[in-house]
């Protein structure tokens, strides 16, 4: 069981239940002591309160939000003044509507394009013999932890001379390049746990590598493909540095850059608008996360070291 939490944890054979389910206890236990319960409640309270405060503030009008604490809005007498206006202002005036579309336009291609490319490579690394294979794979493993700003200075110059500065293409390619080692690593580790006999018998039946890959390996690898896709999507959606360096503020700016530049960085933007902008950035990640938590946990160890 401890082996499931080593880097590159995902395997095909692990039980497909959530990590959050508990193992069956062999000994009967008394219900948790009240002090344990109290401690957990306090911890959860610390986790919820900051986000809850921002959520409440995003529905308050400007005068209230900037002249009194959000907790005063909890008094039912003040509930009448809640408004959706901040979201309208954030989406239209602070241009977060456009930025939301930009974030999608950046994230989706950067998520889906690397999958097939990495899967092909992972297939070769898993099921084919060739000189240099192990060395190349070790290099890929070690590149997993390289921080992505390593590549920025030269790429900025190259993009400048190619006229790619500020375009979506520049960030797609960057994220594809930097997502590749994680994808190959995850896919290869998963494919290595698929039953060999299936591949052997496909070979006996005369199936080519190409056919084996498309008909057998790719469909069988869906869980790990999904877990990479979620990781890469959240990673690109939440990215600030890459977008700042290669796109920057303006009409192509994604949500993270727009919220930082149009709201947080601007003097005089009220807390009501700033928090509404913040909530807008996290709606989609939270939905994706909650609906696909299982796949997310699967890629966790390997995914979190990604540079």
């Amino acid at each position, binding site marked *: *069981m401890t082996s499931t*939490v*080593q880097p*590159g944890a995902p395997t095909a054979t692990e039980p497909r239940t959530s*990590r959050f389910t*508990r193992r069956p*206890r062999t000994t009967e236990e008394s219900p948790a002591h009240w002090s344990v319960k109290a401690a957990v409640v306090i*911890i*959860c309270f610390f*986790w*919820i309160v900051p*986000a809850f*405060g*921002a959520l409440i*503030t995003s529905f308050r009008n400007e005068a209230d939000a900037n002249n009194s*604490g959000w*907790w005063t809005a909890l008094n039912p007498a003040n509930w009448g003044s809640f408004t959706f206006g901040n979201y309208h202002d954030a989406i239209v005036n602070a241009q977060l509507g456009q930025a939301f*579309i930009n974030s*999608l336009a950046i994230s989706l291609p950067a998520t889906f394009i690397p*999958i*097939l490319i990495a899967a092909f*490579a992972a297939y*070769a690394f898993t099921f084919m013999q*060739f000189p240099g*294979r192990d060395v190349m794979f070790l290099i890929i493993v*070690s590149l997993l*932890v*390289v*921080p992505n*700003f*390593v*590549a*920025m*200075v*030269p*790429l900025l*110059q190259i993009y400048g001379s190619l006229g790619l500065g500020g375009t*979506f293409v520049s960030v797609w390619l960057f994220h594809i*390049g*930097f997502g*590749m080692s994680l994808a190959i690593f995850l896919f290869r580790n998963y494919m290595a746990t698929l039953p060999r006999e299936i591949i052997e018998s496909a070979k006996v039946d005369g199936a080519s590598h190409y056919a084996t890959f498309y008909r057998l390996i790719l469909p069988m690898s869906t869980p790990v493909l999904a877990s990479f896709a979620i990781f890469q999507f*959240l990673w690109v*959606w939440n*990215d*600030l*540095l890459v977008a*700042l360096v290669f796109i920057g503020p303006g009409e192509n700016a994604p949500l*993270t850059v727009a919220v*930082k530049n149009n709201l*947080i960085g601007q003097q005089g933007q009220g807390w009501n608008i*700033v928090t509404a902008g*913040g909530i807008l950035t996290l709606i989609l*990640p*939270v939905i994706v*996360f909650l609906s696909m*938590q299982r796949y997310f946990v699967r890629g*966790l*160890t390997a995914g*979190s*070291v990604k540079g």
Partner: protein
Amino acid sequence: MGIKIANTILTVVAGVGVALVLYWLLNKLAELLPGRWEDRLKPYLYILPAVAAICLYVLYPGLQTIEYSFANATSTKFVGFDNYTKLFSSNGFQQTILTTLVWIVVAPVAAVLLGLLVATLVDRLSPRGEKTAKTIVFLPLAISAVGAGTIWRLVYAYAPAGQPQIGIQNAIVTALGFDPVAWLTIRTFYLNTLLLIVMFLWLQMGFSMVLLSAAIKGVPTDTMEAGRVDGANERQIFRRIVVPQIMPTVVTVYVTVLIGVLKLFDVVYVMTNGNFNTNVLATEFFNQLFTNFNNGFAAAIVVITILAVIPVMIFQVRQFRLQEANR
């Protein structure tokens, strides 16, 4: 706006389509070769696009950056070790290194200890309580530092004494009769950096908690039972029986958070922009690149970061080899 949506869909479809055609062509190309050559060449053709992407975007620019770190601000002339000596002799950069060290020392250890604490606590709850608590602590992992920044700037917000406090931390402080504090400007004992670490832990702790929790659940109950039979109390069981068995996971979590800290950019950039002695390596890199337009300094900071990452890289490769040997 409609055009952008259409373009996005088109790019996804075209991108995947082009990849499909590319592999079909590469495969056909290999099949044209005589039998033995086909088998020899095919693997390389399969890995070619992926390896090309890595070489083009990671290896080549990485090596180029090392070269630039020995060149001037516009990368037109070599200056030897000038960038490094100038950086290390400037007070600003020394401060940046010190602040980065505070992060390195505090954040990974705090993440492990806190994760361990929460994991052991929720392990004693009912399954439903455990799941709820874990989801709450885990959820911030999905959101960006920018989103979290709007949340935590509100927590640390400051208004001069006498005015109503918007931030909950200052509201508590003033309610207790003290003066409000401009939290993110206090450099004494790195208080502002420590407060940024609190925000970082709020974002990241779910990661260490989930991994450590899985490890704790993997500890065989009979080893704990044996301890109980021998008269060990709960604390002894935890320290002598559970901790040694989850040690590999503790190391993995520590290393992972350490890497996260070494490349940390957005938390600092969003909260303080590196002011008030909160600057770390990645934010200083960004400053040199975009405020000072000094490629030489920026590249030198990258190289310093790489040097710090290399031990982690070696650990990663070793870990992988170990895992392969056990397969």
